[in-house]
């Protein structure tokens, strides 16, 4: 499945172990994975480059939660493909969608990492970069 190693992926995750797990999982999909531990860092980076996908944890270092970061991302890029990858359960609620913006929700558990890879892989289909 080494279709397109040109995907630029941003991963916003403050736990080092999870960072490594995600990197390993997405390794075959992309040469370019940038890691951030805070929402603020990710937002700053967005001013410089536009990723194909953002994998976003909800609990981050810094002052912003994943959802709050998402809100700012959406203001800049309404169509950017974002996967909210979190141990928090049931984040895919009406309230969250209307308060923060749309996202693809994936709960962190044993089977989640393989699914993360699929979701990122298919992000090409929805990529706002044409």
């Amino acid at each position, binding site marked *: 499945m080494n279709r397109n190693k040109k995907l630029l992926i941003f991963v916003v995750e403050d736990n080092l*172990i999870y960072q490594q797990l995600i990197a390993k999982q997405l390794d075959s999909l992309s040469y370019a994975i940038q890691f951030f531990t805070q929402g603020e860092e990710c937002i700053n980076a967005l001013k410089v480059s536009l990723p194909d996908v953002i994998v976003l944890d909800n609990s981050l270092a810094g002052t912003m939660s994943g959802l709050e970061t998402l809100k700012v991302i959406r203001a800049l890029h309404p169509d950017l493909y974002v996967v909210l990858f979190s141990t928090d359960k049931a984040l895919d609620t009406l309230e969250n969608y209307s308060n923060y913006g749309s996202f*693809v929700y994936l709960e962190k*558990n044993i089977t989640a*990492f*393989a699914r993360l890879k699929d979701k990122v892989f*298919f992000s090409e289909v929805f990529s706002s970069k044409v």
Partner: protein
Amino acid sequence: MEYTAKIKVLEDKLALERKARKAAEAALRRKEENSKGLSPVVGKKVSSPKRLTEIEAQQRLLEANTIIEETAKAKKIFLENMSHEIRIPMHGILGIAGLLAKTSLSERQHNYLKLIKDATSNLLVIVNDVLDLEKIVNGKLKLERIPFKIVDKISITVQSFIYQAEEKGLGVIFQNAIPGDLVVLGDPFRLSQVLNNILSNALKFTEQGSIIITTSLQFAASDVLVIECTVKDTGVGMSPQILNGVFESTIQRNSTILRKYGGKGLGLNICKNLLKLQDGSLSIQSQENQGSTVTFKVPFSISEEKIPEIELPMEINYLGLGKRKVLVAEEEGLNHFITKHIMESWGFEVDMATGGKQALIMLQRDQYDLVLLDIQMTEMDGIAATRRIRRMKDADKASIPIIGLTTQGLKNDHELYLSAGMSDYLSKPFSEAKLFQVITRNLIHNKTNSINMETNKAYQSEPIPYPVLYDLSMINEVSGGDEDFVKKMVALFIETVPQNLKELNSYMDLGDWDMVSKMAHKLKSTIDSMGIHSLNQDVRTVEHTAKKKESLENIPSLVHNINIIIMQCIKQLDAAIMQPVR
């Protein structure tokens, strides 16, 4: 078949009456022009011969009307009975064909049988469609208005379809952006009927490539939202002429399409009508050889009700998952028999274990797609069995979907099952539909895991005196057999976690509860990723209570426990992973 004759007779009568009525109307008009001030009253006897003709005319009018109504009624009854009479033998054909398929057949015979089944299924669909179209056109179709969970309904419809598509070698992507807990008021049956129709078409006309299903929602007003669903395929597509003809309601047009593609031409027409009835819309974009994209939208009002999973047995195709091999560990008894019996009727192969221990032995020996474990078993309960399974040396087997069968419905227990490593749970008593639903959603997940599985080597070769406090399932899963990667992760844990503990302890000593909560939050991720299940609850409790500044007196003992277990884990990991080098 007496109905055809009856209708013919009535139609003839009707033709005669129409003729008579026309003549009567003409006569009436002439009368009205000639006689002023005279109002003809039906049924009253009048002496004048002129009046008699008028009255006769009125009466004939009434009779003609009655006959028209009777004809329409007869037609309706005819259709309903016809479809009923056709459906019964067709279900018979399908049922026997199913039994025949289980006998030993040559490949050619299997193919013929498949064709018979396909043709019969198609015919059934057409019969249903004809009846529906009739109802819609006459405005007789009643829409339900019940609360239901949209995502559940759509998921069930899509999942059984995914299996058929994969059998055909097509890729399927289901991208859902509708919240899982959204409950709306509407007609779930018609929604899935529309979706089914569209998916069937996509499947029928696509030989290679993929089918992408996306759902999303928009808000129309504060309590009304619009669900949008798109099905995009890489199939044969439609030329402009066909595209135009697709919505034609005349049977002649549709039979051209039917003949050319062998498809269910009525389908899309029904969809459009059904959607119109629900104030929705349908649009198609298509290019020959480039595939088609069908988009439909339906408005719904939001329901305040919170429903637990709704079962809709009529919609489920229990044969839709194909042949799977399942292990059930349940203590002997009626339930034991029923569960096995139900799944066998779906075409599954079911093995029974009478307890946790036996289940483990059987899992080692054979290859299964899924395990059902009763939580309460005497010598080894479901939770203990789950933990043992997740620690199995064979990574494939260790990650098998495990569904816990529970009799209690308490929330806390659910956390326990999931943290023990179960993939899902189901509370007894459960219906066939519910069992199917839970199995379906866990089986599909497993398909995606298979890409990472390679033959695994033993990671825990050293005998450890204490029960193993960590669980490397998640890390093993991601590593795909890469031992070095696993070692790297463990090393990372051993290096970084002591510092986290130190900070947690310091903040607690200082009484800085906000920071205690933050540190616990940080540790939570690490504990989860390393599968230290026994600390699952504790670290969350500390995070929560420290933040809320409640029950602060309990925190020190919890933190103490966290320290002990983590240090113990470090020791165990060091011995098991870091040291053995040969």
